[in-house]
């Protein structure tokens, strides 16, 4: 049986490719892209206000609400603003760390640092947000640490959301920048130094321009992850972000939730197009 099947594929590359791709492409195109298409279609449905039943027609009501209600406009603005702030914060924090890892640390130090940055990237998202919730609470570590200086922490609110999101996505920014810096040949840096450039000039004129696409690559993650997160705002603030509104509408107004879910998609597509222009795709 196995032999006969293998014989069938033997010398028929087209058939081999189809056999290999049928499963994964079927799953991702029919299953996943199909679901995204359903999401797009559902955004044009409405909910009958009397019966609460779904009306599967073509209506722009959800989008009108989204554009005309100042509440939703503010929520979208707030979410995009936080995403931008988080991205800038992470880029500033990540660069020196990535630079040290790529160009200063010894081989051994590098290996240890990569693991130290990697492990938290992959695990315990919820636990980390929860940890910040306890730290930011009135009797938490932050107030305890700042009290001797007569200061107090930011408490819960949009500042907390900015802080926690910057924390959560920092490793996503460090790793692409690290990889980008690793690719810059040391000889280029030496050449700049030999030609008399100060370390600052070398940094500004040689390293930064070459590493910039990697920063943009990292920013894709920090931006996208912030746009969709609703757990962090829920745990460390009372403010509403796009994710919260989607979450709150999912059970009783699915069409409106779907329309809202298109917002991060549209913002991300625009962002990705700019990122592509800046050459970030080679660094993802």
């Amino acid at each position, binding site marked *: 049986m196995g032999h006969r099947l293998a014989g069938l594929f033997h010398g028929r590359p087209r058939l081999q490719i189809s056999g290999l791709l049928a499963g994964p492409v079927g799953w991702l195109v029919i299953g996943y892209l199909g679901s995204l298409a359903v999401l797009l279609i559902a955004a044009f449905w409405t909910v009958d206000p009397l019966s609460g039943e779904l009306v599967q027609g073509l209506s722009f009501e959800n989008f009108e609400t989204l554009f005309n209600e100042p509440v939703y406009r503010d929520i979208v603005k707030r979410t995009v603003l936080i995403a931008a702030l988080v991205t800038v914060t992470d880029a500033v924090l990540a660069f020196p760390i990535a630079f040290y890892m790529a160009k200063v640390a010894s081989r051994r130090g590098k290996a240890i640092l990569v693991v130290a940055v990697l492990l938290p990237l992959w695990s315990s998202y919820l636990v980390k947000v929860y940890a910040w919730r306890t*730290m930011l609470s009135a009797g938490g570590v932050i107030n305890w640490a700042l009290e001797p200086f007569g200061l107090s922490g930011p408490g819960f609110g949009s500042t907390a959301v900015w802080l926690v999101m910057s924390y959560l996505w920092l490793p996503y920014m460090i790793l692409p920048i690290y990889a980008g810096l690793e690719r810059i040949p040391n000889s280029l840096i030496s050449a700049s130094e030999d030609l008399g450039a100060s370390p600052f000039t070398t940094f500004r004129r040689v390293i930064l321009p*070459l590493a910039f696409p990697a920063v943009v690559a990292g920013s*894709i993650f920090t931006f996208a992850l912030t746009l969709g997160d609703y757990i962090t705002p829920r745990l460390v603030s009372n403010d509403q972000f796009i994710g919260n509104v989607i*979450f709150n509408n999912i059970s009783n107004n699915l069409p409106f939730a779907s329309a809202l879910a298109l917002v991060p998609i549209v913002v991300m597509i625009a962002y990705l197009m700019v990122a592509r222009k800046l050459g970030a795709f080679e660094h993802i």
Partner: protein
Amino acid sequence: MRLSRRSTLLLRLAIGVGLAFIYVPLIVIAIYAFNASNILEWPPPGLTLDWFPKAIESPSVHEALLTSLKAGLAATAIAIMLGTLASLAVARYRFFGRETISFLVILPIALPGIVTGVAISNTFTQVLGVPLGLLTVIVGHATFCIVVVYNNVVARLRRVSTSFEEASADLGAHTWQTFRFVTLPSLRTALAAGGLLAFALSFDEIIVTTFTIGAGEETLPIWIFSRLFRPNELPIVNAVAVLVVLISIVPVYLAHRLTREEGGVAAARGGRIEGGGVETEATAVP
């Protein structure tokens, strides 16, 4: 690079602050898990080991752990299968739309989890008429786990020369025999690493899970989340949180050890886009 002593010192400081920033919250939760008091206040008044046995004995934790394991293992199995098939096609054949495959595989993890969650839940409940439950969670998890396996296996296939496979075919082996006795053995550690990472990703996931899980069912992250707003349950939550961190961090570390040379773990999450490494090396020299 030649740096002044002061710059090196400043960079070391930045690393120290950065790592502290990354690890302090996790350490705080670990300490709270041993907190003798029922109330979360800093510093804890005393330490105790009581919460861990309580967490382990709790029937709802058992059930949530079981659900998490089932979802994680099933999603990993699907991701290994689909990820390997796709990577073999992309790394070993040339065909129209080859670059699109990488993009397609990365999409579920590049889009915010909430989008994936809402989309999959919509499709199952509104179009297919399938009620939400463990099955829908598995489908959701498998979808975003494929990329992890795919990236690891593609990276390995690029490193392994095709000449072995050609030799095997020349010696008369069938396609299947070549795969079974030549290709597969060389993929072993990449598959293990991809599987471990996929499992860790699934085990830790909460957003897609929230939208795809049935009423009354819980994975461990959902279990934690639903209890965060009940102060009297927080001590057990802290202990469970530490267990979850350990269960998801160990596979990641193992996967890193297995694929160190390929930068597997580092590259897998971001998803390496076709030929990226080589191209940038060229662009790095102006």
